[in-house]
């Protein structure tokens, strides 16, 4: 974990976090990499997830193996991407 702001209640298990903000009660499972991202409260990140320049809204459960913030064309179809290339993931977009 490097250059990040991590709140109380977060659980990071063998994951990597760079330059990110983790709100309360965020959990990150094994082998996931989160960089330049903001994870809102109660977000659960599965295994082998890769996030770059992503905002994840409250209570989202990111499924195993998801990659977001790399292929913006793909992200535009399934999530919301800002003008500056930041991807926003809401629970409705994940069908939750």
């Amino acid at each position: 974990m490097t250059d990040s702001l991590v709140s109380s209640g977060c659980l990071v298990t063998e994951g990597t976090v760079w330059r990110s903000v983790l709100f309360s009660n965020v959990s990150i499972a094994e082998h996931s990499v989160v960089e330049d991202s903001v994870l809102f409260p109660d977000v659960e990140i599965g295994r082998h997830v890769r996030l770059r320049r992503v905002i994840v809204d409250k209570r989202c459960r990111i499924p195993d193996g998801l990659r977001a913030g790399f292929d913006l064309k793909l992200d535009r179809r399934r999530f919301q991407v800002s003008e500056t290339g930041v991807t926003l993931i809401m629970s409705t977009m994940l069908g939750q």
Partner: protein
Amino acid sequence: MLDRLISTTSTTQATYAMVLAGGRGSRLGQLTDNRAKPAVPFGGKFRIIDFVLSNCVNSGIRRIGVATQYKAQSLIQHLKGGWGFLDGRFGEFVDVLPAQQRLEDHWYRGTSDAVYQNLDLLRRSGPELVLVLAGDHIYKMDYGQLIAAHLRNSADMTVACLETSICEAQAFGVMGIDEDRRIIRFKEKPASPDPIPGRPDTALVSMGIYIFSAPFLYEQLARDAADAESSHDFGKDLIPYAVPRFRVSPIRSPKAASARRTGATSARSMPTGRLTWSSPGRRLISTSTIGAGRSGLSRNSWRRRSSRGWRMAPA
């Protein structure tokens, strides 16, 4: 130093802070689909509205109303859970003021209407001063200094301002000032902002932080509510109406030189710069449109009043 001493004694205790947190907000996109902008999480374990509420409490203002309307549930829950520590028995509170069609058949139509519809609550609290704040701004500020400047001028209304570059100023309410640094115009989001005289690349923009002497605010709100043309907004209607009718003399505070406002309200970066305080001072020529003859409370009368009402245990 003296400014702060004045304000900490009793003035901030006689101030009611009205936080406007009802706006829809569009620039945060789907983040505000389910919650109002002030309720958007920020900085690890906070929400945007915490900044304004912290500023109030840290400035000694402990009578706070939060006007809510749009998707307020998340915000109300947060206020209940995080800001319930003030004790109503000592006259300290963070009150939620939801739109409830109290006066007529409509919800809050604009920022000034949100205050107008809660006028009964305001009057019941009996404050000397009313501080009007936006719930979606992120900044740190000691309102005590602003209040002290307001009182020093015996002003009816004081507007907190920032200096910013001309091109950035187009997104804000811009103060047109003359050589004597008096505000002569106020335009909301102008295509060609008025520069500060002698500095063609700089403009003075409103931060959306207003302080009013209570009787003056009541007067203005009643007038604005009766105006069918008005959109009932502080920046668009009430302030532009008030500015040309008063003698407006900005005041600079060297202490606040480093105050900054940062960008929760805009995807673009907010202007940063020197904080300037502008106060419409006493009326130069008495106008008949605004309740004749009453300019701001003089400092002495204000002190007298505050020693009567608004008593609290000494800090």
